[in-house]
């Protein structure tokens, strides 16, 4: 059974899958949402109920969770995606919190605020490795095809995207649904790892953490998001000895990164062996003169 480090890897893996969803939504489509914790909850509870009540295999539970979350995201997207910036954000935040409240109140089905226990332990190292690999494969491919490019067009200049015939409403909703499905996927895995879930596990803090992770990784870098997830999951865990200071350090790190490296760890770039080679070469051969001032327009 899962040792501590194995457990950490599993946790990192779960977070990676959820964060990939946020990366697609926020990094590539520039929609900031604080509702992904809610979708994770929907996935977790759907998966848990399927596994315990209907004794479905894990794959079925995952697909079930993703389907339900995707469907709800589709409906929610239809009504909220017309909102701009902070308004959309707060609407999704409201959704996420509403999910929590609904789960808390559906006591007979979900166990309410006290949680749902007795979920079979199924998320082991192998399951996680396969899941993460599949998730990255799919996300990478989607982002490097028509769909991903359309997302980026919306991110860069929505009016122009419309003008070249991209159905921006549809693609925004698609990004929203995909990110919800990734969140749900992570949620199902989470439920079958912890074997016990409570609604507060998926509260607003969870959602904001995911967004922060993506920003730190670089809005528009899938690999950046993955690296940031790994770092942000492991750092507080490894620094557990310094219990009290870890959240302080975490908060400060967020501020530092966003001010000192505004494009996140990776900006729009992806990690690659070639990229690292060029970066190193650049470092050692060129000393560029940088003007600190901005000139615009």
């Amino acid at each position: 059974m899962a040792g501590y480090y194995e457990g950490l890897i599993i946790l990192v893996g779960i977070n990676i899958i959820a964060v990939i969803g946020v990366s697609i939504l926020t990094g590539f489509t520039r929609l900031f949402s604080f509702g992904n914790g809610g979708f994770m909850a929907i996935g977790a509870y759907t998966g848990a109920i399927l596994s315990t009540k209907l004794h479905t295999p894990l794959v079925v539970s995952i697909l079930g969770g993703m389907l339900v979350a995707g469907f709800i995201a589709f409906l929610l997207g239809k009504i909220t995606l017309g909102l701009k910036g902070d308004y959309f954000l707060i609407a999704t935040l409201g959704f996420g919190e509403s999910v929590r409240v609904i789960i808390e109140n559906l006591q007979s089905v979900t166990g309410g605020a006290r949680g749902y226990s007795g979920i079979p332990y199924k998320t082991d190292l192998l399951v996680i490795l396969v899941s993460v690999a599949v998730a990255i494969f799919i996300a990478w491919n989607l982002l490097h095809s028509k769909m991903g490019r359309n997302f980026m067009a919306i991110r860069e200049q929505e009016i122009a995207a419309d003008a070249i015939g991209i159905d921006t409403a549809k693609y925004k909703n698609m990004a929203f649904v995909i990110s919800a499905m990734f969140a749900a996927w992570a949620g199902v895995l989470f439920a079958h790892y912890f074997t016990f879930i409570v609604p507060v596990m998926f509260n607003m803090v969870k959602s904001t953490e995911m967004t922060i992770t993506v920003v730190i990784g670089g809005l528009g870098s899938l690999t950046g998001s993955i690296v940031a997830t790994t770092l942000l999951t492991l750092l507080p865990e490894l620094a557990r000895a310094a219990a009290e200071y870890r959240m302080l350090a975490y908060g400060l790190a967020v501020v530092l990164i966003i001010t000192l490296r505004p494009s996140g760890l990776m900006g729009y770039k992806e990690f690659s062996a070639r990229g690292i080679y060029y970066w190193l070469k650049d470092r050692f051969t060129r000393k560029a003169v940088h003007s600190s001032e901005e000139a615009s327009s």
Partner: protein
Amino acid sequence: MTETILKITDLQKNFGGVVATRDFSLDIEKNKIVGLIGPNGAGKTTIFNIITGIYQPSGGSVEFMGNNIVGKKPYQIALAGIARTFQNIRLFTNLSVLDNVIIASHQDCNYSIFSEMTHLGSFKKTEKAVREHAMQLLEMVGLQDITNRIAGGLPYGHQRRLEIARALAIHPKLLLLDEPAAGMNADESEDLCNFIFDLHRKFDLTIFLIEHHMDVVVKLCDSITVLNFGQTICQGTPEQVIAEPCVIEAYLGEEE
């Protein structure tokens, strides 16, 4: 054998109390270059915005190739074959020049969602074709050597060309250009004219353009419509229009 590609009838647009467009009608024939000029705030850009579905008109109709397009979404109108550029350039600023054009070729990426997820099947072949087509377009506008530059960092003139290349990637039948020569000097404007003529010929394009540089308008257009306070005050060939007293009074000024 003239065929009307765009038929605008009694178009009306109010913004609160401001009447931006008033009973505006215009027929544009296929394969023509038509100019729209008029004082600042006359409602020219508003007409473009209505044609492309960004604004809903308060009244009137717009028919494109026989179909009413009022009430259609901007993307539907673009898919129907109307492409445009913007008065304030709107590129995908942080993406490369090539990506700007490839994104606009999304209609040509007709692979399935499965193929998209796995990059198997027809994916590679389609992508290659799209890329090649984009390169062709960039070559046409003369940006073939800087395809990897970030669009936002290009000089103004290049940005305008890129915006046109991007517009062409959606295989338009009608191209709307909003002040393509703004910020260019006399010489650069002349280049632009030649370039627009080229496009017009190669793609069988109908072009509808707004411009304040009269030399450009006169050189390019088959016919010109002059707008003032949202209303047509005059219409005709360039020669006719620039000689018209009311145009001189409202728009051109005495001197030229």
